[in-house]
């Protein structure tokens, strides 16, 4: 399935819903959209991976790039993901120690200090 991107505002957070396949071909569009959101002033960005069917290293690189961009701008970045195959990708790459990953959008937007989900 092709990449789909839709953004909305939830509790003062910009939520970007991503769907389909994020790979070496489609990742540049995801990067573009994230850059646009930050350039437009978004500082609390949550990327919802609920609709993602495939995610590769290029996609992961784009997410890390967005997190760095927001860090420089004193913003916050989080991911919403509850699918085990995707969570395994984050564990294997050790990126689960880099991103705050939340099970739901509610959990991501309620986490005031961006410290990640309570364990």
């Amino acid at each position, binding site marked *: 399935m092709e990449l789909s991107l839709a953004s909305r505002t939830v509790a003062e957070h910009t939520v970007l819903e991503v769907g389909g396949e994020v*790979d070496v071909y489609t990742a540049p569009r995801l990067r573009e959209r994230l850059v646009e959101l930050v350039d437009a002033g978004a500082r609390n960005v949550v990327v919802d991976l609920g609709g993602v069917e495939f995610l590769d290293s290029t996609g992961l690189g784009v997410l890390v790039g967005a997190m760095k961009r927001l860090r420089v701008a004193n913003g916050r970045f989080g991911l919403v993901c509850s699918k085990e195959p995707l969570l395994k990708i984050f564990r294997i790459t050790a990126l689960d120690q880099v991103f705050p990953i939340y099970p739901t959008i509610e959990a991501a937007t309620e986490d005031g200090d961006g410290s990640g989900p309570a364990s």
Partner: protein
Amino acid sequence: MATVRLSFSPAPVHVRTARLVGVAVARRAGVAEELLDEVRLAIGEACTRAVALHNQYGLPDLVTVEMSDSDSYAVRVIDHAPIEASVGLAKLPPDELADESLTDEALTTGVGFALLAGFVDDLEVRPVEDGPGTQVRMVWPVQRR
């Protein structure tokens, strides 16, 4: 002997095609259903790496994917970039992943290798026998013959 062989010009858009073919042949070969996501990801990473190397060196040569199902399911992804380019494969520790000085390319390469090494038990990266280039060989067990 290869049962299916696919060659494609080094463009990102074709990596998805390689993944789809690789998974279709894996399924037909008898690779367990629960391994297919890993097969899809690993073939994608190996092809992404090959495409990136060809683009980095301005090589128009085709990237080749050979799928063979003789005793197990073996996939070889072959590029034609200079060998020294392949040496930069290294898994990155977590504290370096978010480091500001790490370039996007280095990050993606390191993460791509971590995924290959993490998802493929039987993985081999070595020079091709004739001319410049590297082959990434990945093997998965099959359930029925």
